[in-house]
């Protein structure tokens, strides 16, 4: 162990700890900007510099190791002066002072530049912003917009995309003041192998990356008397929306959210969980058939649109392994525009289907030609929060209300879709029943839960069949899992989620600048399992509204009508030049 002092406080840390880690142990907050607890250390912004007794040069706390007897001063006059100058230089590359654009920035409440300015005690701004030329925004993607004028070159998006997602669509190009973050040959995010996962958005400290907004189109529909506007809410939204209203991560606000969306003016408030149950019925049927017939195993899940685009680019040879089942969002759209429209006596032309998703890739998914405009607009959790705030709805203080029944009843299996391993667990609960005719005694499949990057489990089903399942989350892990499969490791069924931890930390979720990624993910996941545990209905195949939907409309899981409406195809995209 190593003993040192930070601001005269004694602290003992493990060998190889950094000064930053030592300081946090004694609750000394050193400002950081390019540092992120889930990424490799970059040491680029230099804001974390500290004074070390006996050393002339200031040291960056993020990549300087603590040594025995070190005396560190984190907020000495010299350090504070240097930090202010560094911050000014950073701000000079960030289009902040003109036209009061902080007021309209998407990060008005989660701007890390503002946090750091406060931490440093900034009291002057002498430099004029250095961007001599207006740099054009990148609107080429269906999911994500880049505004390079707000980019401060911290490279967090680059590292996130490479290290956590294993994709690498961004790089720094040119030198010196001309250095910029860009895509391959400046093509734009919509024209390269971007998966639309939006992890770059949630790792950006400024407003340089944000989702493609659908808010205006949704307002327009809500104000249009002719339109019947219905909304679906994804599992992970209910355990994250309250964060935008000041609550802890993982706060369950299902009923309050439903009440809030009614106030916003939606004609019906439905649940994506309902079609998560439907997805399980279709997907489990497919898994049972394919396992029985040894047909293209393992079956790979298909509900994460970031993962889908990833496999289309990087492993197109394995597309026939994907389940053909559409994602819950798209199943909802398909059922709404047929079954619901028929029952409610509404012309599908006048029906507007809006989803609220923790995801930016869902915007791209809804625009895929295979999906026939079943879902009209996709709002991220963040956009939904902004819309609610702008009409003065304080979500957390509303009386909870229930979803509208027809497409609003769901099992706990639907809720846990938002956590890594949840789709697998939900599917196993139902597949087991489909094969054996009885329910699992212990329905909680705990080995597939949690934040371990790669998980697997063996579930004994019959004397002849032990189901071997795998789970990966974060696209880098998905890539590792694909390499295992390529190398011959055998699974029956593998769940892949684009985002680390699953949809609960999707690219469309509230950005928490106060807490570590791990804590935010764990709390949101705990929220979902809490909902499942406290629900009476925990098995998709026991959902009475799903049973009714099959009886009245779809016949049975895997029927030709179900296939036409609820299943889809994939596209070989590859990476040009390889």
């Amino acid at each position: 162990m190593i003993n040192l002092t930070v601001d005269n406080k004694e602290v003992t840390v493990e060998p190889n700890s950094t000064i930053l880690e030592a300081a946090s142990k004694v609750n000394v907050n050193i400002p950081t900007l390019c540092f992120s607890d889930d990424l490799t250390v970059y040491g680029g912004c230099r804001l974390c510099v500290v004074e070390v007794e006996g050393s002339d040069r200031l040291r960056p706390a993020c990549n300087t190791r603590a040594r025995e007897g070190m005396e560190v001063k984190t907020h000495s006059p010299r350090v504070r002066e240097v930090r202010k100058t560094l911050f000014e230089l950073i701000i000079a590359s960030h289009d902040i002072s003109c036209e009061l654009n902080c007021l309209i920035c998407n990060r008005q409440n989660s701007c890390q530049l503002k946090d750091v300015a406060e931490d440093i005690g900034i009291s002057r701004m002498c430099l004029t912003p250095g961007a001599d030329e207006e740099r054009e925004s990148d609107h080429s993607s269906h999911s994500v917009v880049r505004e390079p004028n707000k980019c401060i070159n911290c490279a967090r998006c680059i590292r996130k995309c490479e290290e956590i997602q294993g994709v690498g669509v961004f790089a720094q190009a040119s030198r010196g003041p001309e250095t910029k973050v860009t895509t391959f040959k400046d093509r734009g995010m919509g024209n390269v192998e971007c998966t639309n996962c939006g992890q770059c958005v949630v790792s950006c400290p400024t407003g340089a990356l944000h989702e493609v907004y659908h808010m205006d189109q949704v307002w327009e529909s809500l104000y249009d008397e002719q339109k019947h506007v219905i909304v679906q809410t994804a599992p992970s939204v209910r355990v994250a929306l309250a964060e935008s209203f000041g609550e802890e991560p993982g706060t369950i606000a299902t009923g309050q959210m439903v009440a809030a969306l009614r106030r916003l003016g939606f004609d019906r408030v439905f649940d994506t969980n309902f079609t998560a149950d439907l997805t399980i019925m279709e997907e489990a049927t497919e898994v049972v058939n394919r396992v029985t017939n040894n047909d293209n195993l393992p079956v790979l899940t298909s509900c994460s649109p970031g993962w889908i685009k990833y496999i289309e680019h990087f492993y197109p040879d394995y597309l026939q392994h994907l389940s053909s089942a559409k994602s819950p969002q798209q199943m909802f759209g398909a059922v709404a525009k047929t079954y619901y429209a028929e029952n409610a006596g509404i012309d599908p032309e006048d029906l507007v289907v809006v989803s609220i998703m923790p995801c930016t890739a869902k915007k791209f998914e809804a625009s895929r030609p295979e999906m026939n405009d079943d879902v009209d607009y996709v709002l991220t959790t963040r956009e939904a929060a902004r819309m609610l705030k702008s009409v003065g709805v304080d979500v957390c203080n509303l009386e909870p209300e229930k979803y509208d029944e027809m497409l609003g009843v769901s099992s706990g299996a639907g809720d846990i879709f938002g956590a890594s391993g949840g789709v697998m667990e939900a599917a196993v609960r139902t597949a087991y029943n489909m094969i054996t005719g009885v329910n699992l005694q212990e329905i909680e499949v705990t080995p597939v839960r949690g934040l371990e990057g790669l998980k697997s489990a063996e579930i004994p089903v019959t004397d002849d069949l032990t189901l071997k399942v795998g789970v990966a989350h974060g696209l880098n892990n998905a890539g590792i899992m694909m390499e295992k499969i390529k190398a011959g490791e055998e699974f029956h069924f593998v769940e892949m989620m684009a985002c680390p931890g699953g949809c609960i930390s999707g690219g469309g979720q509230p950005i928490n600048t106060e807490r570590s990624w791990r804590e935010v993910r764990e709390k949101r996941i705990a929220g979902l399992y809490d909902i499942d545990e406290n629900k009476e209905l925990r098995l998709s195949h026991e959902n009475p509204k799903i049973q009714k939907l099959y009886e009245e409309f779809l016949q049975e899981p895997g029927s030709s009508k179900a296939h036409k409406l609820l299943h889809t195809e994939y596209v070989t995209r590859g990476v040009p030049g390889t």
Partner: protein
Amino acid sequence: MQKEDTDILLEMAHDIQDTYGYIPEKEIAELAEKLSESRATIYGALEFYSMFYTEPTGKYIIRICDSISCYMNNSNEVLEAVQDYLKLEAGETSDDKLFTLEVVECLGHCGEGPVMMVDDRLHTQISPGRAVEILSKLH
């Protein structure tokens, strides 16, 4: 990227550029594959060095230095003369794909400015007239 990979990348990139005159997209993808990097990373690395080209250039690349020593020795007059002669702005390639004209940072001959480089050949203490004369012999 690891340091060894960067070294290898630069060597391979030079070879490719010697073959094609620039680094075509397909070759960038191959470099990425060989070094287990993304296309964007390789592109970013190549863009760092101004003498790597990711788009086709003219048959001859004319570089005129405008760093401080050359500038004080009237490199701007050389540039103007060359621009007038080639009917090109800096950064452009002629329609017949014969010339690419560039204004560059220091070429390492500050005591002998202004300097102009034609492909690998350096011309020092050059006058506007001499610059045009050299180019006229290239057609």
